[in-house]
């Protein structure tokens, strides 16, 4: 059992400034995770050699892997920091911000582009209004159970982080919003916007940019069948394209 917990954090003071590494050492406690260690540092912010520093800035909220905030690279792997248990990590534990999003400060990044993609693909059910219109459409439990898996996306960005096609030279929206199209096109009311969603996927930064590396599905903390969604959307857009071409 190591008697200390050692941490290296890649820090960056502002979006424009250059990054630097800082190292910390804390006394060992069992059952820590990356967030609890960062919390402990904030109580006495000092580097390993005793130099006073500022608390590390990072995004976090629920600490139960459901809010999607605390995605970062832990020992080089894109994952949620709250479920990164110290006892299962090689030390020193290296923390870096996600590289595919603009850094705000330290480990905090701006994932606003993901929410923009959700607008673009119309990821919603077009209800008429909130007034009482009785129950929603019936669904078979088996169909519901599959859709539920897709609806668990926490917009953490890990699938974009690991995708080779998401880079400075492309506008690829990544797997998360594509899978949301698969979700909403399944819903009995949601599918009324099927055509518009598929058009969005056929546009710039859409499905065509996918290189089929399949990293996304392995990086998803919610085990969403992202590559299945992508394959399904490839078929759907192809059919949609033909229909448009031949006007049927």
């Amino acid at each position, binding site marked *: 059992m190591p008697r200390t917990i050692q941490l290296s954090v890649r820090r960056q*003071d*502002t979006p424009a400034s250059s990054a630097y590494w800082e190292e910390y050492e804390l006394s060992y406690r069992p*059952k*820590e*995770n990356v*967030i*609890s260690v960062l*919390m402990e540092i*904030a*109580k*006495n*912010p000092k580097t390993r050699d005793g130099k*006073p*520093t*500022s*608390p590390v800035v990072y*995004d*976090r*909220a*629920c*600490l*139960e892997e*459901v*809010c999607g*905030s605390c995605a970062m690279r832990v020992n080089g792997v894109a994952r949620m920091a*709250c*479920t990164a*248990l110290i006892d299962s990590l090689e030390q020193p534990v290296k923390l870096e911000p996600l590289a595919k999003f603009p850094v*705000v*400060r330290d480990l*905090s990044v701006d*994932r*606003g582009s993901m*929410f923009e993609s*959700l607008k673009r693909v*119309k*990821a*919603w*059910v*077009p*209800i008429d*209004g*909130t007034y*009482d*219109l*009785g*129950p*929603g459409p*019936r*669904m*078979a*439990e088996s169909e*519901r159970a599959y*859709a*539920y898996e897709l*609806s*668990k996306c*926490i*917009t953490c960005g890990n699938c974009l982080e690991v995708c080779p096609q998401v880079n400075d030279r492309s506008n690829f929206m990544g797997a998360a919003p594509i899978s949301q199209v698969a979700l909403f096109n399944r819903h009995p*009311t949601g599918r009324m916007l099927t055509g518009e969603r598929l058009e969005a996927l056929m546009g710039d930064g859409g499905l065509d940019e996918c290189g089929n590396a399949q990293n996304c599905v392995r990086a998803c903390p919610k085990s969403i069948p992202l590559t299945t969604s992508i394959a399904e959307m490839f078929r759907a857009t192809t059919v949609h394209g033909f229909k448009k071409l031949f006007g049927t």
Partner: protein
Amino acid sequence: MTSERVIVVGGGLAGLMATIRAAEMGVAVDLFSIVPVKRSHSVCAQGGINGAVNTKGEGDSPEIHFDDTIYGGDFLADQPPVKAMCYAAPGIINLLDRMGVMFNRTPEGLLDFRRFGGTKFHRTAFAGATTGQQLLYALDEQVRRFEVEGLVDKHEMWEFLGLVRDADGNCRGIVALDCVSMRIEAFPALAVMLATGGPGIVFGRSTNSVINTGTAAAAAYQEGVRYANGEFIQVHPTSIPASDKLRLMSESARGEGGRVWVPRARGDKRAPKSIPETQRWYFLEEKYPAYGNLVPRDIATREIFQVCLMGFGVDGKREVYLDLTHIPRKELDVKLGGILEIYEKFVGEDPREVPMKVFPGMHYSMGGLWVDYAADPRNGTLDETSSRNQATNVPGLYAAGEVDYLYHGANRLGANSLVACLYAGKIGGPAMVRYGRDRGARLPPDDGAFAAAKKRWETEFARLARMSGPENPHVIAEEMGDWMTDNVTVIRHDGKLSETDVKLQELSERWNRIGLSDSSAFANREISFVNQLRNMLVLARVMTRGALLRQESRGAHYKVRDLEKGVTEENALPRDDANFLKTTIAEHTEDGPRITYAPVDTSLIPPRARKY
């Protein structure tokens, strides 16, 4: 484009519902949130949402839901709004269903319902065990639609600092901090709603997200908004203890058949599965044969607490077993998958194979900002067209969700929080729009209040930035949390409450000697936290003073004569309807909270003894 604008602060279920409802009325909404709204704390709700839809043919009805809720809350809730909520609940579930929430289904394709605490009916609609997440996403998606249409402007990563009030005291807008650029701005609105959630972080570790500091409610309170029933804090019976938070283990685990037990022999070291049935003590089932493991949370929590106090905790620790291992794996995965994954990931054991170890953890505040309602004498529910619904005592300021005090009385039933948030947002959104159109629009133009409020907060934050004393804010927060958890949760005792009140004042003194370790003028979370901490300390005193002055036991507020004797009927002060069937009202003064009491509307169900 409309020129009518309202402000909603908070993007959880209540805030998003209010936003949707206001936008539907053609009003533009400025929506402020400390995090991207999709990451709000509603996402953590697990078990489900109550509504007496009666798809199981059990004879359930909104009237029984109403009675269960009032009885569960030990008669402290005003009855008309609770009745209105229970009658609205089936419609709210239908609405969520239409929005595409992937609720579990019956073989006929209808919504499935599960059991929850404090009722004998299958009344809880659920989407696996991540119902809050699914509900929040459905509302987030509808709000995004309005965003695209130009009716909603999101201000994410902005933190509410305070109100803008004109010379006559009307709320005219808010002052907020951009948590990235650290810019402070004042924003005008016809009306403002706070939907900022609960105060779990006042207790240090809780089931709440770390963003749930209660800072917005506490700031409003210090500007003259009344805070009601602050002493009523729900401690959830089953959470997973850890050093960073107490992770929730949903009541749905028991709703689906999970059993709570400890070994009958103190300090029994055997693996749980090797302990035979006869040597297990299913203490909830034994003491409460009618409700078993599904007694309301305040009761289950006290029983678990007491069993551990008596030395029966697993390995002598403050832990009991929550056992699902007798339920088929497949069923567990479909109905409880999300929470089992949480347990597995954090504890490293498979709860399908090994009983979980859990202990009570602070979970929810029944108390919150005082809000009004307009009763409809014709049917005992609410006049939902009134601008009085969800209105605080400050004209133009509304509150909805966990931050209001209205729907749960002295103890909240499981799965009633989601419906309360949505109902409050559903009636509160239109109420604020009506106020804005009727009265807000007729208020005189800006009297300089905006510039003054902005200046005040800029000056304040400049002062905070210069703090250079020896104290660390996170250390003060930890002490506050430990004191509050030890003394203002499950068992309350006058001596300890008095000591806590003194301690909180000492911590407030120490707050003045904080030194900031972060001097950056960019994305400085430390300075935000220092401001939040001051507010948390104020709110902690409201809770503590309320508990000290309430000389009875009611729901989650359980006061004992002798701490050593723990949870026993003789040791607890009895419920005292003559003196304390009253809403606690706290008002801020320089010397701490001034506590008064207001009558409770019990016009529909006469109070009776609460025995499960």
